[in-house]
């Protein structure tokens, strides 16, 4: 039986650079690697991986960076990516594999775990290592965020996906030493049965939700698509922020799914999150609870969102928000 050693993270790239989730995973993985006194390795998978990305992974904590380049890996596809990760996992037999709870991680991690025949905990918000057994204690929200569960798994490798913006990246250290190791992809195309025929961007113009310092979100109580483009948009513009939504507006088609904040949408952590006419269902709160300050505007004083918020106003948003926006404009101009 193979000896399991070290920590492996699946790195994601965005426009050729490390995605923020990757530096977070490196930060988390570094701690466990130090505790085990073993190596931290990072997988970078694409059609072309910039050398800068490899160096970045080392500067953020990796000891080894496995670089897997192949034309078929340009876009994420479960069937190709899982072959690459499965091969690396078998060859380097790590004790731990960390992935992001991202669109890619959500699709890839279960494929990998079932292929390797081991357990998996998805969407972890806390991870610690038991000092005696050296096994991971994997904490994840369950029941739509109404409870949390702690899981352990004694089969190797232990695989988890980690929610974005939970773990801290290390300070970048360009003097850190590490090795970039090219690995052949060797993809068996006979095992690729799906074909991507078209990609369609549906993003709103303006600042991206994930990058916005302020997010103005609306819920079911907004009642129709228009206020997202007027009342909420005006407030967001004053604060140089973005407009988001809870699940009902996205499901009703009032806003594109790309701005849905929640357990099954985007997980965001802006400086300021303004929840307007949002009741605060656990599954929505899961997507915004990392925000620095949460402000709630809701006509129902009993709404759950007031249990999550730092500041609140009880009132109809149609009256509260325009006055709030006007006053803010005035104060910010002063």
């Amino acid at each position: 039986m193979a000896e399991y050693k070290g920590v492996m993270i699946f790195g994601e790239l965005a426009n050729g650079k490390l995605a923020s989730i990757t530096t977070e995973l490196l930060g988390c993985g570094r701690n466990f690697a130090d505790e085990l006194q073993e190596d931290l390795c990072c997988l970078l998978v694409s059609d072309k991986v910039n050398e800068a990305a490899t160096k970045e992974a080392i500067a953020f904590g990796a000891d080894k960076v496995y670089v897997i380049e192949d034309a078929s890996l340009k876009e994420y596809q479960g069937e190709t990516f899982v072959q690459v990760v499965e091969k690396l996992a078998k060859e380097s037999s790590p004790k731990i594999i960390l992935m992001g709870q991202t669109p890619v991680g959500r699709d890839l991690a279960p494929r990998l775990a079932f292929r390797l025949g081991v357990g998996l905990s998805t969407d972890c918000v806390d991870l610690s290592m038991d000092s005696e057994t050296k096994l991971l204690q994997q904490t994840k929200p369950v029941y739509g965020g109404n409870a949390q569960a702690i899981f352990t798994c004694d089969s190797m490798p232990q695989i988890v996906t980690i929610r974005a913006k939970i773990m801290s990246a290390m300070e970048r250290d360009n003097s850190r030493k590490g090795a970039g190791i090219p690995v052949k992809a060797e993809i068996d195309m006979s095992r690729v049965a799906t074909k991507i025929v078209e990609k369609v961007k549906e993003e709103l113009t303006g600042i991206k939700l994930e990058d916005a310092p302020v997010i103005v979100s609306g819920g079911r109580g907004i009642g129709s698509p228009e206020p997202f483009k007027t009342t909420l948009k005006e407030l967001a513009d004053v604060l140089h922020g973005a407009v988001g939504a809870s699940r009902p507006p996205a499901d009703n088609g009032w806003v594109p799914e790309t701005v849905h904040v929640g357990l099954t949408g985007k997980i965001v952590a802006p400086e300021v999150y303004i929840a307007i006419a949002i009741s605060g269902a656990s599954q929505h709160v899961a997507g915004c609870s990392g925000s620095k300050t949460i402000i709630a505007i809701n006509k129902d004083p009993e709404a759950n969102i007031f249990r999550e918020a730092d500041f609140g106003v009880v009132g109809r948003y149609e009256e509260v928000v325009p006055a709030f926006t006007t006053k803010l404009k005035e104060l910010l101009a002063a």
Partner: protein
Amino acid sequence: MPDVKMVVCCKQVPDPEAPPAAFKIDPAVNKVTLPRDIKPVIGQYDEFAMEAALRIKDKVGGKITVISLGNNIARDVIKKTLAVGGDELILLEDESFEEGDSWSTAYALAMAIKKIGEYDLIFCGRQSSDWDAGQVGLGIAEILSIPALTLARKVEVIDGKAKVEQVISDGYQVTEVGFPSVITVTSELGNLRYAALKGIMAAAKKQPVVWKPADIGLEPSQVGLAGRRVKLAKLFQPVKEAKCEIVEGENAAEAGANLAVKLREAKII
């Protein structure tokens, strides 16, 4: 065009729309307890999966077999799948199926699907509404060695293939896959239709088929709690401190203006 043979996996869960305050945990057994008046429901994502299958049946014709795994499955809850247009209902129902994880659940479902024998498309919700793991659909596909596509918001069957719109982070992609394959469905696909009275009456007369572990070639040690690969160490509710400062005013508009002043003073904005 021959009819499409579909399987839909549906799980009975505690109602996720129940007020958060109603959720309690019994730490002695690591289980959620809910007041009696809160009835179980079919997982919300599983309902979207059911709707995806029904739309294909509407358009090109087909047969839908619903499978549910658990113990003490409420017949009036799960029969909704027949009332809306499902053709057959198979329950994997036994005490030994209780407290499984994604592994033991996916394995038992895959074995049941093998026993059904003929299948073109297997639909699952993107995740369950209780454990929120999002693994079972992909797990079934891996165990059966067939392709899987996740996060479908639209599924059509054209020329013996499925054409699937999958949600991705900046929009959607259209992906094609042949039969048989697994498709997991997300909320934007749309809500499950209401059952017509005729459907409800017909469903009331139908009896589900019940399979025990032995019927799908499994030992009790391979299912439920015994078949888990991930151990549940603890289930708890994080303690939250209410800290919200409510800003008031003579009327709603004044409260809004006061909120602006407050946030500016606190240097939050």
